[in-house]
C-alpha cells in the first residue's frame, strides 16, 4: 500500500475549485425488512433475523413494506423533492457474498423521489443550498467479517463469515447533484450536509440515525478543476465515511490528494477510495471497471409503486416542522443572542430548554432562566458523567420546581446547586430534598436578628463605619451572618435587617 503525496489545503485552494457529490444511505427504522417480514433489529445474534426471502431461496416472493414506502416519501418531501406518480424497483446485479441473491433490489431509472434541495447551514450561519438529484428505495446488504490473515482487513483474509440479519433492511439512498462553489468551505459543507440529512431523518422519526451503528452512511465524491474551468475533473468516491468528522476530514484529504496528482501532471484515476480513521487518509480501492456492470433491469417480482397525490398530501400533512425552521422560531421566541443560541444547540439542550419552558409556563419561568439552569448547571454535570444532558436524569419539572424555590426566596443559588445534586442522586423532588438536607433559608427574622446582633458585636469597628455612612462595609457583617446561618440566610434580607437595625439608609 503506497502512501499518497498530498498538497497543503491552502495550495490546493489557490489553484483549484472542488466539486462535491454525496450518496447518503439511510437505514429506515421500520419493524420489518423492505421485502420480507423478518425483523429489522440491530445487534441480534447472527442469522436470527432472516427468512427465505432474505436468503434468496428459490421460489420466494418479495412483498414491499408499506411503512418503508411511506418513510421514503416523507424523506423525499422533507428534501423538497418531487414524488414520482409511479416508480419501479430494479435489480442491481453483482456477485458478492453480502447479498445471497446475487442482486440488490434497488431503484434505477424510476426513483421514488427526485429534483429536491436542502438548505445547509454552516457553523457561522451561512446557508448553502444543495440540490438533490434523487432519493430511491433499496435494501441493505449482509455483514461480512474477514478472518485469518490480518484480522478485520480484507487484504490477506483467508475467509469471511456472513451474517444476513442486515440483508434486506430498508434503505433510502439520497444522491446530490454536483455541488459547486463551496471553495475552501467544501470540507465544512460536507460535514454540515450529512449532519443536516441525519437531523432531518431523525426529526421525521424514520431512522434511528445513529452513524456509529451505520444507520446513516456517506459516500463522498470529490473532484477538482482549475479556477475558471467549466468542465468537471475526474472524481474519486470515498466509501463508507461514517462519522461527521470523518466526512469533513475525508473531503479535505481527497482535495489535497487530487491537487497533488494534478500538480504532478497526471490525470486523477477514477476509483473508489477507502477512508482510514487511524491515519486520516484514504487508500485506493478498485478502479471503476466492468465490475461495475450492474446490468440493471426491472424487478419482475415486484409491481410498481403508485403514489397518488392524495396519499402524498396525507403524508405531507404528518411531517414535523423542519429542524432549521424550528431553530429559527425558537431563537426568536426565546430572545437569545446568536452566540447564546448556538451554544445551546451545540450543547444539545435545545429540546430540554423548550420542554422546561413549557413545563414552567404556568409559573412564568423565563427562557433565560431555563437556559441558565441547563447551560450553567446541567451541561457541565452531563459532561463530567459523559452522558447527553437530556439523559442525565433531570426532568424539566424538577428544573421548574428548583427555579421556583429560588424565585420564592426559599433557597439561594448555592443551595439550588446542592439540591440539583440531590435530584441527580435520586433523593426525590427538589422541595423534598430541601427539607431532607435542611437547606431551607432562614426566613424567620428572629434567628437572623440574633445572628446580626452577634455579628455587629463581634465587629464593632465595622458597625461604626456603617453608621458613619460607609454602607459598602456591610459585606463583612452580612458575611458573618451567612457564616452563622451556614449559608441558609437570604443575603438580601440580611442586608435590609442590618441597615434597619443601624438606622442607615441603604
Amino acid at each position, binding site marked *: 500500500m503506497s502512501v499518497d503525496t498530498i498538497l497543503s489545503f491552502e495550495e490546493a485552494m489557490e489553484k483549484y475549485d472542488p466539486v462535491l457529490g454525496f450518496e447518503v444511505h439511510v437505514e429506515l427504522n421500520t419493524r420489518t425488512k423492505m421485502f420480507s417480514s*423478518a425483523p429489522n433489529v440491530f445487534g441480534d445474534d447472527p442469522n436470527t433475523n432472516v427468512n427465505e426471502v432474505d436468503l434468496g431461496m428459490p421460489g420466494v416472493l418479495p412483498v414491499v413494506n408499506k411503512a*418503508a414506502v411511506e418513510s421514503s416519501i416523507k424523506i423525499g418531501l422533507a428534501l423538497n423533492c418531487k414524488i414520482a406518480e409511479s416508480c419501479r424497483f430494479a435489480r442491481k446485479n453483482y456477485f458478492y457474498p453480502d447479498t445471497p441473491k446475487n442482486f440488490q433490489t434497488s431503484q434505477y431509472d424510476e426513483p421514488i423521489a427526485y429534483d429536491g434541495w436542502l438548505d445547509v447551514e454552516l457553523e457561522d450561519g451561512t446557508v448553502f443550498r444543495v440540490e438533490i438529484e434523487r432519493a430511491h428505495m433499496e435494501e441493505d446488504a449482509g455483514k461480512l467479517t474477514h478472518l485469518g490473515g490480518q484480522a478485520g482487513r480484507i487484504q490477506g483474509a483467508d475467509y469471511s463469515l456472513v451474517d*444476513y440479519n442486515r440483508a434486506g433492511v430498508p434503505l433510502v439512498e439520497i444522491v446530490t447533484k454536483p455541488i459547486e462553489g463551496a471553495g475552501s468551505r467544501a470540507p465544512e459543507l460536507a460535514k454540515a450536509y450529512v449532519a443536516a440529512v441525519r437531523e432531518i431523518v431523525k426529526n421525521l422519526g424514520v431512522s434511528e440515525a445513529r452513524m456509529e451503528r451505520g444507520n446513516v452512511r456517506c459516500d463522498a465524491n470529490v473532484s477538482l478543476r482549475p479556477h475558471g474551468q467549466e468542465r468537471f475533473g475526474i472524481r474519486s468516491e470515498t466509501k463508507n465515511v461514517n462519522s461527521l468528522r470523518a466526512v469533513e476530514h475525508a473531503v479535505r484529504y481527497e482535495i489535497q490528494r487530487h491537487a497533488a496528482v494534478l500538480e504532478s501532471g497526471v490525470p486523477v484515476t477514477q476509483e473508489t477510495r*477507502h477512508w482510514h480513521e487511524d491515519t486520516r487518509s484514504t487508500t485506493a480501492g478498485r478502479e471503476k471497471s466492468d465490475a461495475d456492470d450492474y446490468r440493471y433491469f426491472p*424487478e419482475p417480482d415486484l409491481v410498481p409503486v403508485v403514489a397518488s397525490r392524495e396519499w402524498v398530501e396525507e403524508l405531507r400533512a404528518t411531517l414535523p416542522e423542519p429542524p432549521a425552521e424550528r431553530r429559527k422560531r425558537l431563537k426568536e421566541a426565546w430572545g437569545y443572542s446568536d452566540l447564546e443560541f448556538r451554544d445551546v444547540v451545540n450543547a444539545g439542550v435545545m429540546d430540554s430548554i423548550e420542554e422546561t419552558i413549557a413545563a414552567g409556563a404556568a409559573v412564568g419561568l423565563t427562557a433565560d432562566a431555563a437556559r441558565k439552569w441547563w447551560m450553567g448547571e446541567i451541561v457541565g454535570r452531563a459532561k463530567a458523567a459523559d452522558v447527553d444532558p437530556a439523559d442525565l436524569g433531570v426532568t424539566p419539572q424538577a428544573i421548574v420546581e428548583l427555579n421556583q424555590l429560588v424565585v420564592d426566596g426559599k433557597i439561594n443559588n448555592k443551595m439550588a446547586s446542592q439540591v440539583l445534586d440531590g435530584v441527580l442522586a435520586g433523593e426525590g423532588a427538589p422541595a423534598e430534598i430541601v427539607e431532607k438536607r435542611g437547606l431551607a433559608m432562614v426566613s424567620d427574622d428572629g434567628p437572623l436578628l440574633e445572628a446580626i446582633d452577634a455579628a455587629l458585636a463581634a465587629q464593632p469597628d465595622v458597625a461604626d463605619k456603617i453608621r458613619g455612612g460607609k454602607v459598602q462595609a456591610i459585606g463583612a457583617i452580612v458575611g458573618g451572618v451567612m457564616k452563622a446561618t451556614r449559608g441558609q440566610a437570604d443575603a438580601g434580607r440580611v442586608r435590609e435587617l442590618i441597615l434597619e437595625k443601624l438606622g442607615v439608609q441603604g
Partner: protein
Amino acid sequence: MAAINRDDVAHLARLARIEMSAEELDRMAGELAVIVDSVKSVSEVAGEDVPATSHPIPLSNVFREDVVGHVLTPAEALSGAPDSEDDRFKVPAILDEE
C-alpha cells in the same frame, strides 16, 4: 434487443466468477441466442398500443403491513450452506471489493 454473442457470455461468466471452457462458451452463446430470439418474437407481436411492462399483470401497490412474521433459526438458515462457523455462512476470501 441485441443478440448475445460469445464475448457477452465470457464477460458475464467473469462477472459471475464462473470458469467456462471454450466449448462451454460456444454452446452457451448459441443457447442464449436462441432464448433471446424467442423473446424477441414477443416484441414483434406487441403493437404500438401495448406499453412495455415489467410485470405480466397490471397491478400496482401490492404492499405488506409492517408486522413481524416468521424467521428461520440459524440452523435452518445455514442448513444448505457448504460451510459455516459461529452461526454464520463461511465463504472464501474475496479480494477485489470491500
